């Protein structure tokens, strides 16, 4: 070990991050607040209806906005008549492309470090139309009723241009995207097609998944105003700093002239993870009117202006030896996208990391369409990719006369099959063992269609769940230690229901050696140190790494303050740890001084430590993924084809669980969204007009109480030695594998393989 490595490792004992991941986080295995099922810190506010969301921020002179939407998919506005709207009672102004402030196009997500544009199309800058439902005018009025009435009076005629609106047709002109979230669109190891042709046992299948909508119950909303040329935006967002930077860039003002606040978000699931046009329109209209503006999208408006998950057509082909080991694994396919965005729905990602195969071929294409930009929705790629891959494995297992779990056991790789990296921590088979035992997997009838109670056919299905560990670069945290020994930890991060403030208070308490009651976690405001996107199940790790870095700075400063009159005198930062409300020497229980004592002696009211998280280099060194096993029991009516999910269990391997109560809710939430993906959800897109036909929660069917059985969740509790806190994210893995577990259960119940989602009754009759 070099001298430099030694120094890094010493520092790492305190921070967990010399070279990120090289030394396990010292909090792993340490008793404390982490692991306790604390109730949500914001629970009382939420149950009282006292949590303030973006559309609920009072403002003097507030104007209400309503949007008029285009009725064509592509072309230009030939004639726009806003006079009736302008004359309608209560209307203050109508904004359209002729009077909207001149703005740069939004910088597309991933093209710059803080870029958050869902698309790089200009927003209301000219008469061109790019999708059916694009905003053509925004009306501002004194009340919402007045604004909506006036928006209905806006008259537009169009010159239509030919548009690509049919996925089937668009697929024939598909292309490879430049990258699939940083990975190459084509990955080949060996000659997988040849190996497939030569394999003694094989399946070669096509799967289709439809468009999906996030359908968060809180519609996207902003309340915006300008003060002396600076913008204040109360937003419902998962990407505070991205919205700030991108808006500042569009309006041509300094980043610090934009403040975005979002302390509560009424569900996101990726749908609020970008800058969409409505935030820009609200800010522009507020600037034009010189007054605060509230734009609370209608439910239809959410479907028209904020994109969802794109449709996929996937091929999975598996060639196996008689013992089940894979000679060939092929996963290819195409999704709809636009030339103006970059969300290729990475459905091949599970196949890159899950199973051992002699030859692998993965390929993703995109078909350009004239539609609202699609975007990431809970486990983009993995949710629909595991549907295809895990159904195909079920079909292969049947051909091999193998139990589906046994097949997966035989495919377990030693190292990551495509990167060759060592897994940081992988306990997939343990998930199957735990789940099978608790769920009663042995009761599954190997022959489909053989269990029946009256009209109800009963079946069990299983599938692998997986989602990558991710940690985003660019985060920073601040710790303010007060004279009374309490700490305030802050970072511009997000709470959409994950329990961020609760879990992060627990983590910070253990990091600082404080009781959790003495730690406050502040978030949701860009005036705090930079946060990272609440997406990719990354936020927990991103915050934890920044807080650990700030804690290391704090420790260094505390040792300086402590000076020679302290029991800590002479100790270096690598010889101490934060414990029992202060700093103490490692392995010397008596050598310790409390924070309040250090600050009081130094005559300080507070001590502030700021630090940036180290770049997420652990992602380059190890294959870091979460795993799970999803078990489903369905009852299928032989009369109506109705599928009822009667039992469900998810067993997960996600590293350390910070708060079992909130974690269980995250897992269940993902599973329930997966039940919708499996059985009911489809955003219907008219291939003639390009218009979304069911922009409503009455016609876009999310699971309701009656659709949700008791869901059991268990976990391996194996900490990941390469991740901060030993924890990998848990927000998205819950939805993965669910579609396949349901479809495989439906097959076991009925003998029918449904490869097109959702599994609606018509497909079973």
């Amino acid at each position: 070990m070099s001298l430099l490595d030694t120094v890094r490792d010493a520092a790492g004992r305190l921070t967990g991050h010399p070279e990120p991941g090289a030394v396990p986080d010292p909090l792993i295995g340490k008793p404390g607040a982490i692991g306790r099922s604390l109730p949500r810190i914001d629970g009382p506010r939420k149950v009282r209806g006292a949590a303030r969301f973006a559309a609920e921020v009072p403002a003097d002179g507030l104007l209400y906005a309503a949007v008029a939407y285009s009725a064509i998919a592509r072309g230009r506005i030939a004639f726009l008549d806003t006079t009736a709207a302008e004359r309608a009672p209560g209307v203050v102004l109508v904004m359209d492309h002729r009077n909207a402030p001149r703005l740069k196009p939004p910088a597309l997500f991933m093209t710059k470090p803080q870029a958050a544009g869902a698309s790089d199309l200009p927003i209301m800058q000219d008469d061109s139309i790019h999708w059916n439902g694009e905003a053509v005018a925004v009306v501002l009025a004194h009340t919402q009723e007045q604004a909506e009435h006036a928006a209905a009076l806006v008259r537009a005629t169009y010159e239509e241009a030919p548009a690509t609106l049919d996925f089937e047709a668009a697929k024939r002109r598909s292309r490879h995207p430049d990258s699939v979230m940083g990975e190459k669109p084509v990955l080949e190891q060996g000659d997988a097609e040849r190996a497939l042709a030569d394999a003694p046992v094989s399946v070669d299948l096509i799967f289709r998944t439809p468009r999906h909508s996030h359908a968060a119950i809180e519609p996207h909303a902003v309340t915006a105003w300008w003060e002396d040329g600076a913008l204040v935006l109360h937003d419902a967002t998962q990407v505070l700093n991205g919205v700030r930077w991108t808006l500042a860039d569009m309006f041509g003002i300094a980043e610090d002239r934009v403040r975005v606040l979002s302390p509560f978000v009424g569900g996101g699931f990726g749908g609020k993870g970008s800058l969409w046009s409505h935030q820009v329109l609200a800010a522009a209209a507020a600037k034009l009117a010189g007054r605060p503006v509230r734009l609370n999208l209608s439910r239809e408006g959410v479907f028209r202006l904020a994109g969802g998950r794109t449709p996929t057509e996937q091929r999975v082909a598996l060639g196996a030896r008689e013992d089940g080991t894979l000679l060939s694994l092929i996963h290819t396919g195409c999704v709809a996208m636009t030339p103006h965005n970059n969300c290729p729905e990475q459905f091949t990602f599970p196949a890159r990391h899950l199973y051992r195969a002699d030859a692998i071929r993965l390929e993703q294409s995109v078909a350009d369409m004239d539609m609202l930009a699609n975007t990431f929705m809970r486990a983009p790629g993995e949710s629909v990719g595991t549907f295809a891959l895990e159904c195909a494995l079920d079909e292969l297992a049947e051909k091999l006369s193998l139990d589906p779990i046994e097949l997966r056991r035989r495919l377990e790789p030693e190292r990551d099959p495509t990167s060759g990296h060592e897994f940081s921590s992988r306990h997939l088979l343990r998930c199957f063992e735990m789940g099978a035992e608790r769920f009663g997997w042995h009761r599954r009838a190997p022959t489909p269609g053989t269990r029946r109670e009256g009209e109800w056919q009963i079946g069990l299905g299983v599938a692998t769940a997986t989602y990558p560990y991710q940690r985003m670069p660019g985060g920073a945290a601040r710790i303010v230690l007060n004279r009374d020994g309490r700490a305030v930890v802050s970072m511009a991060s997000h709470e959409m229901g994950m329990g961020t403030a609760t879990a992060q208070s627990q983590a910070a308490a253990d990091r600082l050696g404080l009781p959790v009651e003495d730690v406050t976690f502040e978030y949701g405001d860009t005036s705090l140190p930079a946060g990272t996107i609440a997406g990719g199940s990354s936020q927990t790790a991103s915050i934890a790494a920044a807080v650990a870095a700030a804690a290391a700075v704090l420790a260094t400063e505390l040792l300086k303050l402590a000076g020679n009159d302290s029991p800590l005198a002479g100790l270096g930062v690598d010889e101490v740890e934060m414990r029992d409300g202060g700093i103490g020497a490692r392995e010397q229980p008596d050598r310790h001084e409390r924070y309040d004592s250090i600050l009081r002696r130094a005559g300080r009211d507070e001590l502030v430590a700021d630090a940036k998280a180290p770049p997420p280099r652990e992602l380059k060194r190890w294959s870091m993924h979460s795993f799970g096993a999803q078990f489903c029991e369905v009852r299928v009516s032989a009369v109506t084809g109705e599928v009822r999910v009667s039992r469900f269990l998810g067993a997960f391997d996600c590293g350390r669980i910070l708060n079992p109560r909130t974690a269980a809710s995250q897992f269940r939430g993902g599973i329930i969204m997966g039940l919708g993906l499996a059985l009911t959800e489809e955003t219907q897109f008219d291939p003639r007009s390009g218009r979304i036909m069911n922009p409503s929660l009455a016609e876009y069917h999310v699971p309701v109480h009656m659709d949700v059985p008791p869901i059991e969740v268990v976990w391996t509790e194996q900490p990941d030695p390469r991740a901060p806190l030993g924890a990998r994210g848990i927000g998205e893995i819950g939805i993965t594998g669910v579609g396949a577990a349901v479809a495989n259960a439906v097959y076991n119940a009925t003998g029918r393989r449904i490869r097109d989602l959702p599994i609606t009754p018509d497909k079973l009759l």
Partner: protein
Amino acid sequence: MPILVNDRPVFVPDDARVSLLDLLRDRLELFGTKKGCNQGACGACTVLLDGERVLSCLTLAAQCEGRAVVTVEGLAADGALHPLQQAFIDHDGFQCGYCTPGQICSAIGMAAEAARGMPSVVTADLEATDILLDRDELRERMSGNLCRCGAHNGIIDAIGEVFRGPESAGGAPR
């Protein structure tokens, strides 16, 4: 005649188009009642009107003249929590908290309906006067209140505990 909102008299708005929901949110700044769809599909705006659950987005404010409206803000005295609000916390019956006020108001109205002997589609005995709110009854009767975070198990557990008692709650494991 004014509308009584959480025991406070409120004048009926001049504009006949104003829904009870927009009256509460835009004019009274009672933001606890949520707007999820404004078309009666999600239940987030559920409030109690003369003790019955209604969708405030589909109720015109003018219809409420002389009637009593209770919103989530009016369920408990200042600082206190209604037992159902506490049960939602105990059972983690929410994540983002946006559908929560509607779920809670709806559950209170639902329990009153059941107590009056109103059957649901899963009630076996339509003439029963004493309806046991088992898990299926609760799931059926609460299905008009959507939750997208997936807190359904906790919501049903919380409602079951308050309106049926903890011994028979039959909660979701773990």
